[in-house]
């Protein structure tokens, strides 16, 4: 009961409601714009959150996350381009349905299923995160090390990218975290005599560079693309028939999305693809999929929004990001001095339940904004890149500079922008770099402390049951992409 009251607290705080309002609005705009999305948007807004108290800052980031994930559907349905990667599966049926003159129906279904998926996942978050945190009380340094390794091996199965390339990117992220003074012995590593590097490389320049600047370079190669927008009169709430047809799909996808979201490093993109394919598998009319099936839209959208709450579970309970955007939220928590993990649940329940409540409200808010404002948001897609991206550059540069008022940070941001562009060009995802960078200190710190405990005996890791379980799960995570590609070949 107390926790429920804590969850409702944001409703009674005008400041938090204002933050939620702007966060949801901003998230929707980001989600609608192809190439931006909640991850890049979250990274851009991070420096601004320094002016807010920790709860308001995280509420802002989570509302951007929830609304941005939904916003991608508007672009997917109206211009056949996913506003966010998580909305890729929505294009498959959303756009064909819009072309049939039923854009309003498609958007209505996307809005309802996203809201249901989002709310479902917050309920999972409220019940599951404290349980996971309780379990984490049993964890010592070796268990945390094994857990971090499990999180990193899960990178292998992110999206459709090559698992080995994802692992290389993850290792690169951890390597970046070793730059600067060694936190245990204060010995300089990879500083090359540059004083500014002694403190290490900050999260913000890397995150903004890899997401915003690399996307700007990508957009510079796509200037000839012409988007055709399908006309939209108004968003229509799904009919009774549509509800009858899709309620099972929405619930199933909400469950799938929440589960996929809980897995470290996986996120909305994987969730929506699985949600979509399961909707097709269970459908009575699988032949309609790809031609404007309302079940296809519901399956993909419920799953990707359900992944938002799911992904917050390991982020808050263990400090292991559940997705790319939660990696940015985790960065926000760290720069605000909040250390996620079991202690957070014991010491600051009002903070956590405030976040849970805010996510719940954000899901309701984007339903209202989406339902009444989708037509206006759709117009934002018409902002030309030649105007938009120079503006994003100005915000990126000032935002990155503002954190430590260091011009070196801006150069690092540009460097990572170029690195990110070439990584993406050659099939390396940039998400593992961020996750590796965030988990780097945890991996190295817990490894070294474990070795002190074990007196240098590496085999002792295997004598700890929880750690051993995580190592076995890591092996499964590594083998999973291999099995998946074999299965895919069989299907083809």
């Amino acid at each position, binding site marked *: 009961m107390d926790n429920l009251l804590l969850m409702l607290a944001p409703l009674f705080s005008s400041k938090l409601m204002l933050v939620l309002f702007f966060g949801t609005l901003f998230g929707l705009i980001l989600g609608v714009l192809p190439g931006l999305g909640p991850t890049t948007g979250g990274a851009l807004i991070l420096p601004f959150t320094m002016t807010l108290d920790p709860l308001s800052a995280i509420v802002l980031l989570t509302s951007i996350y929830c609304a941005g994930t939904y916003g991608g559907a508007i672009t997917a349905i109206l211009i056949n381009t996913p506003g966010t990667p998580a909305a890729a599966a929505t294009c498959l049926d959303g756009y064909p349905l819009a072309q049939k003159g039923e854009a309003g129906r498609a958007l209505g279904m996307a809005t309802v299923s996203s809201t249901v998926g989002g709310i479902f996942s917050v309920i999972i978050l409220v019940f599951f995160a404290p349980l996971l945190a309780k379990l984490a009380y049993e964890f010592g340094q070796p268990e945390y090390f094994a857990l971090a390794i499990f999180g990193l091996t899960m990178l292998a199965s992110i999206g459709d990218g090559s698992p080995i390339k994802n692992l290389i990117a993850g290792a690169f992220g951890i390597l970046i975290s*070793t730059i600067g003074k060694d936190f245990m012995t204060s010995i300089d590593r990879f500083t090359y005599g540059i004083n500014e590097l002694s403190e290490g490389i900050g999260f913000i320049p890397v995150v903004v560079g890899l997401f915003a600047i690399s996307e700007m370079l990508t957009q510079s*190669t796509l200037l000839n693309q012409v988007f055709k927008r399908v006309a939209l009169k108004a968003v229509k709430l799904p009919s009774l028939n549509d509800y009858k047809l899709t309620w099972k799909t929405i619930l199933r996808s909400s469950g799938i999305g929440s589960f996929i979201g809980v897995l470290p490093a996986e996120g909305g993109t994987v969730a929506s693809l699985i949600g979509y394919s399961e909707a097709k598998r269970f459908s009575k009319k699988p032949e309609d999929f790809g031609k404007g099936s309302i079940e296809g839209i519901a399956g993909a959208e419920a799953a990707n929004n359900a992944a938002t709450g799911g992904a917050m579970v390991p982020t808050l309970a263990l400090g292991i990001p559940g997705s790319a955007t939660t990696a940015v939220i985790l960065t926000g928590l760290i720069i605000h001095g909040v250390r996620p993990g079991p202690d957070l649940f014991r010491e600051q329940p009002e903070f956590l339940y405030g976040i849970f409540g805010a996510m719940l409200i954000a899901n309701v808010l984007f339903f209202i904004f989406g339902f009444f404002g989708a037509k206006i948001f759709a117009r934002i897609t018409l902002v030309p890149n030649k105007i938009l991206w120079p503006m994003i550059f100005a915000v990126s540069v000032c935002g990155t500079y503002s954190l430590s008022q260091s011009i070196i940070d801006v150069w690092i941001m540009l460097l990572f922008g170029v690195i990110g562009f070439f990584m993406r060009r050659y099939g390396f995802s940039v998400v593992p770099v961020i996750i590796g960078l965030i988990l780097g200190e945890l991996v190295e710190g817990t490894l070294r402390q474990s070795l002190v405990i074990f007196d*240098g005996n590496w085999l002792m890791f295997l004598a700890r049951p929880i750690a051993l379980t995580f190592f076995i799960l890591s092996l499964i995570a590594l083998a999973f992409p291999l099995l998946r590609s074999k299965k895919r070949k069989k299907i083809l």
Partner: protein
Amino acid sequence: MNNVQNKKRANKSLPFFFKDEFKVSFIIIFISTILLITTFTFDIVPPILNRGIQPATFPKGLLILIIGLTLIIYYLSIKKPWKVEKKLPKTFFLTLLSFLIFVIVSKTLDFFLAISLLSVFVSYYWGERRILYLILVSVIFPIIVFIFFETILGLRFPPGIITNIYYN
């Protein structure tokens, strides 16, 4: 269609060192090797202060892992070559050049001027020719951003020919 097939065939007949998979693998291994050599220059902690492993051991392990995994992707690419990427357009290189100009101008003249120059440069080469819009992205928007950061966030921008006028 014929052109695409010819292009693919042409790529197949290219010497291995011209192929993307070789170039990418080579660059990763080359940089990793240099970094690996650097790790041998890290200070060594006396055993009494050592916490589990030497500070160089962890990055060494990571770099060896990266080199090993890169060799695997190169080996796999021999069996299954990578998709041929389109040539990068002129606008990409101009955007990259604008970053370089930004770095030089922000270091030598003015941070704010560098943002304005990059904005107008990028916007123009990406196809914007309307003067009003060019002024919007290169002057009006950076001024709004500047005022926002300066007054609301209390940020002090680095000194330069334009920012000095404002601060004085």
